[in-house]
């Protein structure tokens, strides 16, 4: 159980590490890619260049022109003629400089790209080959990775192109750095035991090798001597080399993997591809203790390296944008240098910023390479420490430190290098003060580059926090843009809570939702117009000692939008003092208050009236709904039990009070009885009026007629005057599929019916609708194919006649007579055939149509075959004649080849062709 958990943990952390260390590699490449990024390419830049330069330049020139005119007019300012001369000279110089800006920036970027692509800084720090280049790792990496596409041969080939090799090397350095660090946490356990290392050659015991060699030593046996020599050489090999050998020889023991992969192979793969998941092959070895894997520490160390590299990437990205900005505004500071003192200061600041930003990339790169140099040469730098001669003694136990400890030391040193890389820009800034500070806090880096994401996040967060208010989203986005923070979301959340609280209060004060919303909108409008709030208005009123109505206790409640809601002693809402309300209360207070109260009362009665109406309507609608429910009940109770027919008659009427009532009955008498009872209940007096109403409603009532068949019910609804209101079919089965849908589905099988255009071409009718089918039947578009066939079954003659009738069960449905649809429905209603029989008839139609189509297709095939045969015969005849003519020509020329011979040849060749 414990073993299983341990294995699970190892697998999990190996997976996490593969991601983390993979990210290190990716971030390194991102850094290099972003470093060489130029924000404006020539296409975009040339488009905006003239526009922006012109506008910025004119602004600057305007200031200069003004100052120049001022100096020319003011004798105090233009102390000497040399000042004006200087200004003119500076102006000319500035214009010349503006002309050179695009060229200068292009040149700067070219230099930067050349330095980056040629890896000049890297070469400064790595003039000699690294540990890694000496090893097989990088060579294998380069061998396998530096391939380029060759158009001529349409294939990928290896290349010695220094640029391509350099690009791959750059990528490999990222992978290498990650691997070097990972090695500190993932190594063969045997390297922890220096004594065993001495006795562990290529995975076998050195003692055994020596014994075997000694036992079989013979002057003529070179194998034994070679073994002996190798063992002796091993004894004298330095410890680091032994460690390398052990790593190279170490093989995975994954039962599921038969690749026999060595740890050195895994390192190669990791360096070449950056895929650290390869180490998962060694899970079994970790579990068995053959490989020492310090899992949590490796993840933390990898994460820290990612963090530092991320900071670098962000800095470089910000630098690219800054440089683009400086380039964009260049005409302004350059022109401003014409203006004495302040102008020169502006120009100098701009120049300083540009140069600092431009050279920043090189300092960052230098630091990165400096760190990478340490990382990639870590074994050389630690070589002394790792040698068996100088390896440290543990003072407590007196035993040697294991190599594993040194590998951990290596990992710690790599972390130290990363930490140093992180702090170095700050140290440099202290040595060479600059306006640009490198912060150690991630947020300081993100602040610059996260304004846009913060705005987007603020918008989304604001929307969520405010419950979908887009204005809140915009407010939070604005704050996000300004502060590069998401604090706006919290503010919107607080606003939302405050609003809910205020809503609660105003609800308690008797305000409806509509009123609250209206007030809020009004208040916002007033706020935008800068009018006073309702609070100020109330304060003024209190100052004047005015009451809304003398003798009335008024409670004032401040609502969500700073409106004052006034309530009387019974908590009735008697008025609102809105923000910025300008009503004058001194003279008309009483009138206003009374009017308000009166209006409130009237309004209240209006609302009551509306509410009553609504209630009545609602009860009416409920009656309809209950009627529908009764309808369903009837269906369930009667039809499902097998009743063959059921009639429902119902009507809805409005009484003298405007209230709706629904009455229904199983037949006309039942309906009338129910209606009479209802009218009695409503207080209608007996008499002509009541009778007239009953008769009228009976006549205008609707009759629902339900019929049940074996599997289906069909419902028809029509008025007394015979007008059909609609019909429906319900399939009574467990699936509950409606009969109409079932029939439609049947019709949707692309029923193939003949049309009546006389050509016999088949069309697809219906397109999924029973109505279309019925329409086709009604329109007489169903055609019947009458065919005469020969003994082979081939149609020799065929006629297409209009289909005159279809047989539905025992009922013959005439298709030629008018009123097909109503007759069909009537027959169905009257039980002259069942829905099953109708479906069956339709199916027969479909089958017949399909057969016709099949036959047509089959006949077409046969006809085509005949045509092809005839065609080939015609062609054969033509060729025969041509050949014969040719033969005749030859004969005419006195050759031996006669027409007769040519004919015979042709017949032999064509075999079975008409030899006529």
């Amino acid at each position: 159980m414990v073993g299983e958990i341990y294995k699970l943990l190892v697998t999990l952390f190996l997976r996490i590490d593969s991601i983390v260390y993979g990210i290190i590699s990716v971030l390194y490449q991102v850094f290099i890619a972003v470093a060489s990024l130029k924000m404006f390419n020539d296409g975009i830049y040339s488009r905006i260049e003239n526009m922006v330069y012109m506008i910025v330049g004119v602004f600057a020139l305007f200031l200069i022109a003004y100052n120049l005119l001022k100096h020319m007019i003011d004798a105090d300012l233009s102390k000497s003629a040399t000042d004006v001369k200087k200004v003119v000279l500076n102006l000319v110089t500035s214009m010349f400089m503006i002309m050179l800006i695009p060229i200068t920036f292009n040149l700067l970027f070219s230099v930067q790209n050349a330095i980056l692509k040629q890896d000049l800084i890297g070469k400064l720090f790595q003039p000699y080959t690294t540990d890694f280049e000496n090893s097989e790792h990088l060579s294998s990496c380069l061998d396998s990775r530096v391939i380029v596409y060759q158009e001529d041969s349409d294939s990928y080939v290896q290349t010695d192109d220094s640029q391509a090799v350099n690009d791959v090397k750059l990528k490999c350095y990222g992978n290498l750095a990650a691997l070097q660090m990972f090695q500190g946490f993932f190594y063969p356990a045997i390297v922890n035991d220096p004594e065993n290392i001495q006795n562990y050659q290529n995975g076998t015991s050195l003692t055994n090798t020596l014994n075997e060699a000694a036992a079989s030593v013979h002057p003529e046996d070179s194998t034994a001597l070679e073994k002996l020599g190798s063992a002796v050489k091993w004894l004298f090999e330095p410890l680091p080399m032994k460690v390398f050998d052990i790593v190279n020889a170490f093989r995975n023991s994954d039962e599921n993997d038969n690749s026999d992969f060595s740890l050195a192979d895994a390192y190669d793969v990791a360096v070449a591809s950056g895929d650290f998941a390869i180490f998962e092959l060694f899970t079994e070895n970790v579990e068995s203790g053959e490989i020492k894997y310090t899992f949590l520490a490796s993840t933390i160390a990898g994460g820290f390296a990612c963090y530092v590299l991320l900071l670098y990437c962000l800095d470089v990205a910000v630098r690219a944008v800054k440089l683009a900005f400086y380039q964009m505004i260049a005409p302004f500071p350059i022109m401003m240098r014409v203006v004495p003192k302040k102008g020169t200061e502006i120009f100098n600041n701009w120049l300083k910023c540009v140069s600092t930003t431009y050279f920043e990339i090189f300092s960052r790169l230098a630091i990165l390479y400096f760190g990478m140099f340490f990382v990639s040469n870590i074994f050389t730098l630690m070589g002394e420490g790792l040698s068996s001669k100088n390896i440290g003694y543990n003072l407590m136990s007196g035993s040697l430190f294991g190599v594993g400890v040194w590998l951990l030391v290596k990992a710690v040193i790599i972390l130290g290098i990363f930490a140093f890389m992180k702090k170095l820009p700050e140290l440099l800034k202290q040595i060479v003060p600059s306006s640009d500070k490198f912060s150690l806090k991630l947020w300081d880096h993100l602040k610059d580059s996260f304004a846009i994401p913060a705005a987007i996040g603020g918008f989304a967060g604001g929307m969520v926090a405010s419950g979908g208010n887009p204005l809140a989203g915009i407010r939070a986005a604005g704050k996000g843009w300004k502060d590069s923070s998401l604090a706006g979301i919290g503010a919107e959340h607080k606003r939302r809570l405050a609003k809910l609280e205020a809503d609660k209060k105003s609800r308690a004060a008797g305000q409806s939702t509509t009123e609250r919303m209206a007030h809020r909108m009004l208040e916002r409008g007033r706020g935008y117009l800068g009018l006073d709030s309702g609070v100020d208005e109330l304060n003024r009123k209190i100052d004047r000692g005015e009451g809304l109505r003398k003798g009335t206790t008024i409670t004032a409640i401040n609502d969500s939008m700073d409106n004052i809601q006034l309530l009387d002693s019974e908590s009735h809402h008697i008025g609102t003092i809105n923000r910025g309300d300008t009503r004058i209360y001194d003279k008309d207070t009483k009138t206003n208050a009374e009017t308000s109260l009166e209006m409130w009362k009237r309004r209240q009665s209006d609302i009551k009236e509306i509410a009553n109406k609504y209630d009545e309507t609602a009860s009416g609608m409920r009656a309809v709904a209950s009627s529908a429910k009764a309808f369903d009940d009837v269906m369930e109770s009667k039809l499902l039990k097998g009743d063959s027919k059921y009639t429902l008659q119902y009507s809805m009427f409005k009484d003298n009070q405007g209230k709706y009532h629904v009455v229904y009955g199983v037949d006309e008498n039942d309906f009338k009885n129910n209606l009479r009872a209802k009218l009695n209940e409503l207080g209608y007096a007996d008499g002509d009026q009541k009778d007239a109403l009953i008769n009228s409603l009976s006549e205008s009532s609707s009759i629902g007629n339900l019929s049940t068949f074996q599997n289906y019910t069909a419902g028809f609804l029509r008025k007394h005057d015979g007008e059909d209101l609609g019909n429906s079919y319900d399939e009574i089965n467990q699936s509950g599929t409606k009969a109409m849908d079932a029939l439609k589905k049947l019709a949707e099988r692309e029923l193939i019916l003949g049309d009546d255009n006389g050509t016999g071409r088949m069309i697809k009718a219906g397109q999924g609708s029973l109505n279309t089918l019925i329409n086709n039947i009604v329109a007489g578009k169903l055609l019947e194919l009458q065919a005469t066939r020969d003994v082979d079954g081939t149609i020799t003659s065929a006629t297409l006649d209009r289909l005159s009738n279809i047989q539905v069960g025992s009922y013959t449905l005439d298709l030629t007579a008018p009123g097909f649809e109503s007759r069909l429905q009537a027959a169905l209603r009257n039980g002259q055939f069942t829905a099953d029989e109708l479906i069956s008839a339709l199916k027969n139609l479909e089958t017949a149509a399909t057969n016709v189509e099949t036959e047509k297709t089959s006949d077409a095939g046969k006809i085509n075959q005949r045509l092809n045969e005839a065609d080939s015969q015609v062609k054969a005849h033509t060729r025969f004649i041509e050949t014969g003519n040719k033969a005749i020509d030859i004969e005419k020329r006195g050759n031996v080849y006669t027409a007769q011979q040519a004919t015979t040849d042709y017949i032999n060749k064509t075999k079975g062709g008409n030899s006529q």
Partner: protein
Amino acid sequence: MIFFLIFIISFVIYFLVDYIILKHSKKLQINEFKYLKKRFKYSKKFEETNKIKVTCSLLNALIMSVVCTVMVYCNFKVYISLPLAFVLLILLIYSVYGIYGNILKKVDENEKNK
């Protein structure tokens, strides 16, 4: 379109700068008024007002937008258009402020006569 855009932007910038800088320090005067005072030698009584500030901002915006529009539509190379713009600016500033200065001078004389 460019004309109106630049006109509005430059007007707003000028107006705000004048407003912010000179709001709390009544002793300071806008450059344009200084220039006009020196050029047309107004009497001491005649002082800078908000009306003059707004007018100056409008005139500046007008001058800049005219020059920008002409230059953008001419689409010359930078080394031709910038000197050209400079000359145009000098001419426009001199002439436009000349007209405005004369108007103010008449106002000043009327003030004196009163």
